[in-house]
């Protein structure tokens, strides 16, 4: 997994490329937490280039959503492919996160 951090106005965007699984989830968590400590409050994770996510990856997203909310911010997700959408529906995490079908839609939603 690799990820890229971008800014769009006051939104910090994390593009996740490859897998988000038990072996690499801490990298994403650490980087997002650093951005929050640096003042980021609107955070978007873009999964356009993500292959699959396991339960540990989902757990990190849940954890980050809590921390960002406690900081007065918001975590939103975008660009889930059909399999990732199914994953979120199976676990009902689609009810916990605001998920947009595209990055532009997500940016508009903040």
């Amino acid at each position, binding site marked *: 997994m690799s990820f890229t951090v971008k800014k769009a106005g006051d939104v910090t965007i994390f593009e996740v490329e490859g*897998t988000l699984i*038990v072996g690499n989830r801490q990298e994403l968590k650490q980087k997002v937490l650093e951005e929050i400590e640096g003042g980021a409050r609107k955070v978007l994770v873009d999964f356009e280039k993500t292959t*699959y996510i*396991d339960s540990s990856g989902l*757990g990190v997203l849940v954890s980050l959503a809590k921390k960002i909310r406690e900081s007065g911010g918001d975590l939103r997700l975008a660009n889930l492919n059909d399999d990732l959408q199914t994953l979120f529906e*199976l*676990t*009902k995490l689609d009810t916990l996160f605001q998920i947009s079908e595209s990055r532009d839609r997500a940016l508009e939603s903040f």
Partner: protein
Amino acid sequence: MGPSPMGPGPMPFEMEFPSDIGYIEAAVAQVVRRCEAASFPGRHLAFHIPVAVTEALSNAILRGNGEDASKSVRLRVVVDAHSLVVEVEDDGSGFDLDACTLDPTTIDNLGREDGRGLFLMRRLMDSVEQFRARGNVVRMTLRRRSSDDRAA
């Protein structure tokens, strides 16, 4: 490992590696590659198999072996035209599969950071069994034909 549920048939693929989560992705790629060669559907290759195998290996390393790198994990895979059977064995003392499978979709559990692994394995594969052999074994079976019938 325990007896193959398939009897004489394709040669199983086996690998053993130290109890380190850094090995998971490469091991999963090996399983997917064999299923791809057996013409499993794309959704199985991109979703069901990698997620379920990652969960099984993760459980073996983190829980079964307590992330003790001096212990090992053994992976055994049998693929044919009809099904995939994956066995993951750790050096732990085992667990109660039903008791440990939470429903992460309840209101009480939805906000939990953990507890989705076994649930996903059981939703994405056709069967998940657990038994004792040399160590603790989790066996997962995915039938190719059922792919379009599953909820996932």
